[in-house]
């Protein structure tokens, strides 16, 4: 699903990612662990080009999204991302947070189709071989209504439907992060990227967020999770990558990595955190 080939990223002269090659298959849940400064987060942020890679390629559904000429916005719609700091839109209510992206992308697609249809109609006036028009079977209000229904369904799922019209500043960290997760889910992504989703939470809120992530994982979502929760990685992941100094040092199943680490650096790291 995602093929990462020799991915490199440098900030000035500092090389953070020194050539990462990894293949992420559909349905896999990949946990990335490693000491701080090893490039875990940078790697994750390169996957949806929040950081532009300085070298290598990322093939997502057959398209190299590391190429600057590709319209990254279209591909990002299929990659949900959850941040350490939640990053809910502070000026929008919870329901607007969830609805914003589906409604906006839906309406702008509709507008593009209408514009294309307009030009096809003009062309059809003069050309002999008539081109078919794009099918339009929705309206902006319909898109909004569908997004609202979907958002309420997702909110009900996490039991926060009574917070639909609240602003993010009135919510707890755990609530914010769960809403951030369903905000990403509302776009029906093909892969979810989690950047240390529980690191900014109070200890008693970690459980509820991990529980939701686990549910999403059980539904078969492809996931890449950067995490410090070793127990969670072991339980949910189907594959664990250990990163150190900008490289993937070890890539194996969780059982193997946690019980029988091959690399000395993996062993050292795990002995410190476990």
């Amino acid at each position: 699903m995602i093929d990462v080939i020799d991915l490199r990223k440098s900030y000035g002269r500092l090389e953070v990612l020194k050539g990462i090659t990894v293949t992420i298959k559909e349905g896999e849940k990949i946990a990335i662990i490693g000491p701080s400064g090893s490039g875990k987060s940078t790697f994750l942020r390169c996957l949806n080009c929040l950081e532009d890679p300085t070298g290598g390629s990322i093939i997502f559904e057959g398209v190299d999204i590391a190429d600057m000429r590709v319209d990254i916005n279209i591909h990002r719609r299929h990659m949900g991302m959850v941040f350490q700091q939640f990053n809910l839109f502070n000026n929008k209510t919870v329901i607007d947070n969830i609805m914003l992206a589906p409604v906006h992308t839906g309406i702008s697609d509709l507008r593009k189709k209408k514009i294309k249809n307009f030009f096809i109609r003009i062309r059809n006036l003069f050309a002999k071989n008539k081109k078919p028009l794009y099918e339009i079977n929705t309206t902006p209000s319909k898109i909004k209504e569908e997004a609202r229904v979907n958002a309420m369904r997702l909110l009900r799922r996490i039991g926060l439907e009574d917070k639909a019209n609240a602003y993010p500043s009135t919510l707890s960290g755990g609530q914010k992060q769960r809403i951030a997760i369903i905000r990403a889910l509302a776009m029906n992504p093909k892969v979810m990227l989690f950047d240390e989703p529980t690191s900014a939470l109070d200890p008693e809120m970690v459980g509820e967020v991990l529980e939701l992530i686990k549910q999403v994982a059980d539904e078969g979502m492809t996931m890449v999770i950067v995490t410090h929760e070793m127990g969670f990685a072991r339980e949910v992941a189907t594959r664990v990558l250990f990163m150190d100094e900008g490289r993937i040092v070890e890539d194996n199943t969780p059982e193997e990595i946690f019980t029988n680490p091959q690399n000395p650096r993996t062993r050292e790291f795990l002995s410190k955190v476990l």
Partner: protein
Amino acid sequence: MGSFEKKLIKFWEIFYERGGYTKVLTGLRNTAYIAVAGLVIGIIIGTIIAVIEVFPKYKRLPRILNRFCSFYVGLFRGSPIVVQLLVAYYVVLPLLGINIPPLNVCVLVFGLNSGAYVSEIMRGGILSVDPGQMEAGRALGLSYGTTMLKIVVPQAVKNILPTLGNEFIALIKETSVVSFVGAADLYVAFNYIGTNSYEFMVPYLVMAVIYIVMVMIIALLVRIMERSLRKSDRRN
């Protein structure tokens, strides 16, 4: 005290009985029109410039635009507004062969001038918004422009509203120079009353009071607006 009373009576005669108040109302309307329209133009221009200035500059086009924007800001911050008015009205427009009424020239110049100031205010506001907001928008597949317009700028405006109110107040007061190019504002109206009654004490005093009251009302409106925008914060 007797002479002051006489002055008041004289002022009232010109102001009320000989129709001076219509001039004052026109002046008030023009002052408000120039300030409001100027601020609207200023906010639009300022926002565009601020967005260009914070746009990441990997490519050529943003860099060229940025150069142009700093030139513009330097130009309009570098000279007094009176000079800009005079140059616009007596130099630029005649050279271009365009004939616009003085009032509209004033709106244009005040808009361009306040655009330069608002751009810096707005840039500060945009930089004060957590970069995570932009990242979250981009990660959802929204474009830079959309995220800027729907997420970052509204939050920036909330942060800069007090400063923007300041800018509006400054603009109102600066409009008192538009008579240089022959636009009729409050000063022109009260000057008319003064010259007709050969007596300037009361008209100018009333003018000062009108300005102060106007500014106080605006300050109050800004407060109310701020409060309504702050409803997404817990602290209110």
